[in-house]
């Protein structure tokens, strides 16, 4: 009989999850339900089954295809036209007068005020008119792009708005185009107009075009359309949706559980909008990113024999460890150089990574930075996530990134002369407090905090004997391995959801499992070899406490007199209760399986269960 048939609780990651809950395969009752909350959608990301990073998304325009509610400007509307998607819900807009603006605008104040980088898109097709004009505005600032629907080209404006980042026409077939403009100014209006000439906002009476499915969203590109009716609408990662993570190309995902973190970098993707760019040229939307969209930037050092970087200064930062991260991919250069300056710049730690093979090349210091670390992780398709960490006491923290030549580092500024055309691709810059990087937090103009994941089951049935099995990874990664003495994990099971050090709870601390009965701890011994182990079993069998990891019995103790009756007093499994390392960092982790048995499995069964 399979050991799975003996389990009373099985939580392999499964399709049985929704916003706010994960349901185990067994039992299909409340005892198998884990309540989940986070409260962040736009700040949360995961690696999706297709291997790309998935974000929370949002269409900020209500009534995104209900143009009868929009304000008309010298124009008329005819509804129920054939659309790009085969549905008969496109709208024909027609100019009523010649020589004036004709178009549509959402009714008064529909989009609020949007700051930061955003993209406005609309599907459109030529009628008797040629040009669709997309305009976003915060008067008196107007940002307009003229899309020629007859030939699929964008009018080349001789004096484009400095706030316009890019525009794009995507041919979606049958004469339809998705027209989008991306800009960086604060806006509170969007307008769709008809024009008969590029660069001139006038129309001829009777000119018409078809439009459908409008979207305004944060970021550098238009993403899959999200239909809205009366309010804005979200998609992708929702606020309390468990994140099933497929990092590393796995087919069986993990539950990604992380502490709260803030991305201090205000423009994580529009790196050309970084407050500080030196001796480098940055082109937005130059390559396909780890998100699977063409929203990565290319960074090209200039020909000056000096430093080449972009980054941001963060004044008056609290003390602690800081980690800066970026996704990078080799292009015509194969290396990235990153520097984190702490204590106002008096301490500096720089690292060079090779992006052609995903390896560390060299590191260098200026001053005496402490608790420095680096990490490079493969994100497929040639992309790597590179990170460096350092400790900070007071003053400013400065995060810098730049394309680089190969070879050992000879100075903290990594001076060299580029050729003015070669570079690397980058995406998703992040600076966070903590000694290790957490998942990517997108930002589009201000810093963003992703709240902590919470995953708790508080209805677990108790039994005289039991076995708890869990498979987990990435408790903490430092220098590519789990880290030194900072290896506590968060797995806690307790009575009535109390704190890990309250009455009736198990917790793992400093590699060892403890049961705390409200007065004293009973140690089960070491459970966690941070270099090798990923499958663990905790067993109460009679008066024995047993721990297995990776097929090996780590310890077997005789529970102290009286303890054997106490250690069954728990009913809650909390995967996210915080335990901190010596530096105060709270750890995240990825759980792949959790099983509970209402019996103490035999040694043979435990060896089988925990063998990789």
């Amino acid at each position: 009989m399979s050991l799975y048939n003996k389990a009373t609780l099985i939580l392999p990651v499964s399709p049985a999850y929704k916003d706010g809950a994960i349901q185990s395969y067994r039992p299909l009752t409340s005892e198998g339900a884990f309540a989940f909350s986070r409260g962040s959608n736009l700040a949360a990301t995961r690696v999706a089954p297709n291997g790309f990073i998935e974000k929370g998304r949002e269409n900020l325009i209500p009534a995104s295809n209900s143009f009868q509610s929009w304000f008309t400007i010298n124009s008329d509307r005819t509804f129920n036209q054939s659309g790009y998607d085969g549905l008969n819900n496109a709208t024909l807009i027609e100019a009523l007068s010649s020589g004036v603006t004709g178009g549509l605008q959402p009714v008064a104040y529909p989009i609020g005020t949007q700051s930061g980088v955003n993209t406005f898109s609309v599907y459109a097709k030529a009628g008797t008119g040629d040009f669709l004009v997309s305009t976003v505005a915060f008067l008196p600032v107007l940002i307009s792009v003229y899309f020629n629907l007859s030939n699929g080209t964008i009018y080349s404006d001789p004096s484009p708005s400095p706030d316009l980042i890019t525009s794009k026409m995507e041919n979606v077939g049958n004469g339809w185009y998705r027209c989008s403009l991306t800009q960086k100014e604060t806006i509170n209006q969007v307008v769709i107009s008809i024009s008969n000439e590029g660069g001139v906002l006038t129309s001829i009476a009777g000119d018409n075009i078809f439009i459908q499915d409008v979207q305004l969203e944060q970021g550098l590109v238009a993403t899959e359309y999200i239909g809205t009716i009366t309010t804005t609408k979200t998609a992708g990662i929702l606020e309390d949706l468990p994140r099933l993570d497929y990092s590393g190309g796995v087919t069986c995902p993990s539950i990604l559980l992380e502490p709260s973190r803030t991305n201090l970098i205000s423009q994580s993707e529009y790196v050309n909008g970084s407050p500080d760019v030196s001796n480098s040229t940055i082109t937005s939307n130059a390559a396909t990113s780890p998100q699977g969209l063409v929203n990565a930037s290319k960074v090209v050092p200039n020909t000056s024999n000096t430093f080449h970087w972009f980054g941001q200064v963060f004044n008056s930062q609290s003390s602690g460890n800081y980690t800066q991260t970026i996704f990078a991919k080799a292009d015509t250069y194969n290396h990235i150089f990153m520097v984190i300056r702490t204590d106002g710049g008096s301490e500096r730690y720089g690292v060079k990574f090779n992006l052609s093979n995903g390896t560390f090349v060299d590191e260098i210091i200026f001053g005496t930075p402490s608790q420095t670390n680096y990490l490079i992780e493969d994100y497929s398709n040639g992309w790597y996530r590179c990170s460096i960490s350092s400790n900070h006491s007071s003053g400013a923290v400065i995060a810098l990134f730049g394309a680089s030549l190969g070879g050992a580092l000879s100075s903290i500024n990594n001076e060299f002369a580029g050729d003015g055309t070669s570079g690397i691709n980058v995406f998703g810059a992040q600076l966070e407090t903590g000694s290790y990087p957490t998942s990517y937090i997108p930002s589009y103009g201000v810093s963003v905090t992703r709240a902590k994941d919470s995953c708790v089951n508080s209805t677990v049935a108790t039994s005289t004997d039991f076995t708890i099995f869990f498979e987990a990874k990435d408790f903490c990664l430092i220098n590519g391995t789990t880290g030194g003495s900072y290896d506590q994990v968060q797995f806690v099971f307790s009575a009535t959801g109390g704190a890990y050090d309250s009455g009736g709870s198990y917790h793992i601390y400093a590699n060892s499992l403890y049961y705390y009965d409200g007065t004293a701890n009973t140690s089960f011994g070491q459970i966690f070899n941070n270099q090798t182990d990923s499958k663990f079993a905790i067993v109460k069998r009679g008066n024995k406490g047993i721990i297995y990891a990776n097929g090996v019995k780590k310890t077997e103790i005789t529970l102290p007199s009286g303890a054997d009756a106490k250690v069954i007093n728990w009913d809650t499994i909390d995967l996210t209760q915080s335990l901190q390392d010596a530096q105060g960092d709270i750890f995240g982790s990825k759980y792949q399986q959790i099983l509970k048995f209402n019996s103490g499995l035999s040694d043979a069964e435990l060896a089988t269960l925990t063998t990789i």
Partner: protein
Amino acid sequence: MTRLTRKYEFVNEAAADAAIALLPTDEEGNPTHEHLVTKLGYLVVTPPIFDNEFEQITAPVLSEKYAVDVYWGNEADVSWDSFIVWPTPMGIHTYGSSSSRNEYEAKYCDLFPESLYCTPPEPLE
């Protein structure tokens, strides 16, 4: 559940820490108000000037007040009301939550209906 984003200012970091320490807890020390505190610090009024090697030439001018954002689980602790401030949504920091942003915007426009943020612009002609 819609969580509340609220923004506060204190006379200094010590005052902020004191207020944080006084947030109510149960007998086991668990917070009775679900919350996430984000210390934004002394906000920059005038940015520092750096040379092109990022060596600081002039120091930044910082606000005299210490800024803290709090992400309340359901309702804000009333004991913090005297420290609350209402920057134009969403200020310099968010919790990446659509529902919390919508709630803050609605509350802001209740308090400041005549503000530019909340006053509908005339349609473009």
